[in-house]
């Protein structure tokens, strides 16, 4: 009889970490299984996000362009003085803004996608990882469009991307992973308490100003110390240097941030998995 071949599942009140091997196996299995659903959710989000707009995918380019125009205006008014030509500064800011936008998109993505899927979470059992992976796909798509536009814009401005641009992909990927990991870490608290959602834009604004997006990190002073402690700094600077200059002094500075990001990404994925059922239990509906 076919019933003998059916897989058996036990649901108990015991801690998920009580069987760490089973937990990691199930988590990896769900990440692997969630590909098709994540792809479907990514396509749904992409289509529905821009279907009712006049500018369509143009909205992907507007945030970094706005940042660039703002800082060019500040430079012309001598409020910001980077010591380079206007064209060079535009390339510098635009590159930094595109990378920063990728980081902040990744940071906000997990909480945004989980919040928008609350009714699904409260009624359907599916790999929760699919939601955040689908969100990550959106972030990567947006970033890909922006980077492609950036490279064309740089060539048009007379500052063509360097030969080392393909190497920047690693730094950019690490930057996105860092943002996504911090975002994933915030999900349980963010779903339970709206303080996280309300506080995130403030934190992101402060973080923007302590990250050398539109300026070079000073070599001394408080901003230099804060900038060095900021894990975004080495990854963003490394990526921008590789695109604009083809050389960098920040490989060693980026290594610890990269290693920590990769290590913590796994731990945060486990944390997300074991805490999300407690969050779902408290969801309305």
């Amino acid at each position: 009889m076919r019933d003998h071949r059916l897989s058996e599942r036990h649901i108990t009140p015991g801690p998920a970490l009580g069987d760490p091997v089973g937990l990691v196996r199930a988590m990896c299995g769900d990440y692997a299984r969630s590909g098709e659903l994540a792809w479907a959710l990514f396509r749904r989000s992409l289509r529905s996000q821009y279907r009712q707009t006049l500018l369509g995918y143009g909205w992907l380019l507007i945030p970094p362009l706005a940042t660039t125009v703002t800082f060019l205006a500040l430079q012309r008014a001598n409020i910001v003085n980077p010591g380079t030509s206007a064209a060079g500064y535009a390339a510098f800011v635009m590159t930094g803004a595109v990378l920063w936008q990728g980081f902040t998109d990744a940071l906000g993505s997990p909480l945004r996608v989980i919040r928008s899927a609350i009714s699904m979470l409260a009624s359907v059992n599916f790999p929760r990882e699919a939601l955040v992976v689908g969100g990550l796909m959106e972030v990567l798509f947006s970033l890909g469009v922006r980077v492609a536009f950036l490279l064309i814009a740089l060539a048009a401005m007379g500052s063509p991307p360097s030969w080392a641009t393909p190497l920047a992909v690693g730094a950019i990927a690490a930057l996105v992973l860092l943002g996504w990991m911090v975002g994933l870490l915030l999900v349980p608290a963010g779903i339970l308490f709206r303080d996280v959602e309300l506080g995130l834009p403030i934190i992101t604004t402060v973080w923007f100003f302590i990250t050398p997006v539109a300026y070079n990190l000073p070599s001394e002073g408080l901003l230099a110390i804060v900038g060095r402690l900021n894990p975004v700094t080495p990854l963003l600077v490394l990526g921008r240097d590789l695109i604009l200059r083809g050389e960098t002094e920040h490989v060693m500075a980026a290594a610890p941030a990269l290693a920590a990001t990769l290590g913590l990404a796994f731990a945060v994925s486990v944390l997300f998995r074991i805490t999300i059922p407690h969050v779902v239990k408290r969801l309305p509906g």
Partner: protein
Amino acid sequence: MNTSDAPLIRVKDLSVRYCRGLFRSLLYAAGDCARELVARGAPGPDLRAGEFWALRDVTFELRRGECLGVIGANGAGKSTLLKVLNGLFKPDAGTITTRGRVGALIELGTGFSPVLSGRENVFINGAVLGIPRSEIVRRFERIVDFSEIGDAIDAPVRTYSTGMALRLAFAIALEMDLDVLLLDEILAVGDVGFRAKCHRAMEERLADSAVIFVSHSMPQVARLCTRLLVLDKGRIAYHGPDIPAGIECYYNHFPFEGDDRARAAGWSLESIALAPHPPQEITCHAPRLSPGDGLRIDATVRFERAFRRLALSVLFSDRETRGVAQCNPSGALRAEDLVADRVSFQIAVPRLPLNPGSYAVSLVAMDEETGRFFGTLQHAAQFRIDGDRFGFTPVQLDGSLALDGQNATC
């Protein structure tokens, strides 16, 4: 029906706690998350401040081919039971063992995007429900046919009526290949024709799955379920195969609001008494009848409006206040029968072929000359019919069966 001996779902001493206060509930959630991080499971058996047991010590098993109806008042724990069985969260005590694929039809159309077309949503919703894309491609025409959406499948879902969207969602959900199916009150989808189609589809499913069906519709429960689980404040109030007993147990939570001083425009009730007909030894205000017994109604009413001849009707309604039968006795009340605006009368109903259960009696009066209705004296009295033969419909008619060549007797 294919009923295997091995249970597909086994629930033992299942308990789930909730907290009423929002902020405290969120703090407990944060605490429970922290417990997970230090590899400690659910908190102990004692409730924390503000908590209550949404489910307590629930135990049952279900095999393929069985359908367990879960009924209970609002807040009894039905939806919590479905969610924890579906693995959305962990219980606080007890164990759940499932075999095979478990899926739920709890909220139809979850994940639908209104700006996308029905076609696009079929693929997305199918993916959410765990149906592989290749299967959706293969079954797409069947889904569209079942949902009766037709050419609108390429229009944005926001242009659909609520019924159309639910029909499409139901048609997609029907394509899930499940061993254990959890249903939460979703069979009231679409118009009458579509509902009948849903029921047929579900009945086909019942034969090959173990189904847990949460509903407030007793006719549906009686029609689909092989066993009943009645929940009362999270605890099992009844569990067994006796469907009438289970339904009666559920109805006992909602006592009839009978009113033996009922008033309506033009007349009011002074007194009423019910008794079995023909008379039996015991006569009380809410008599207990056997299936097929008759009923006698003795009433005194007072009129505040003039009339010449009044026709009376007796309405019989069930615990859900649905009319199930009506008696229009011969004869009428005449103005000259009144004594100080009052009249006493008896109505005899020789036979009541109703399902076992509790019923209410209401009185309606109509002026035979003007055709004008007096108001209805609602739920003036109640009675019970006891018995163990429970049918799918309220009225159970007699009949006889005969082989070819023999005569059926009436």
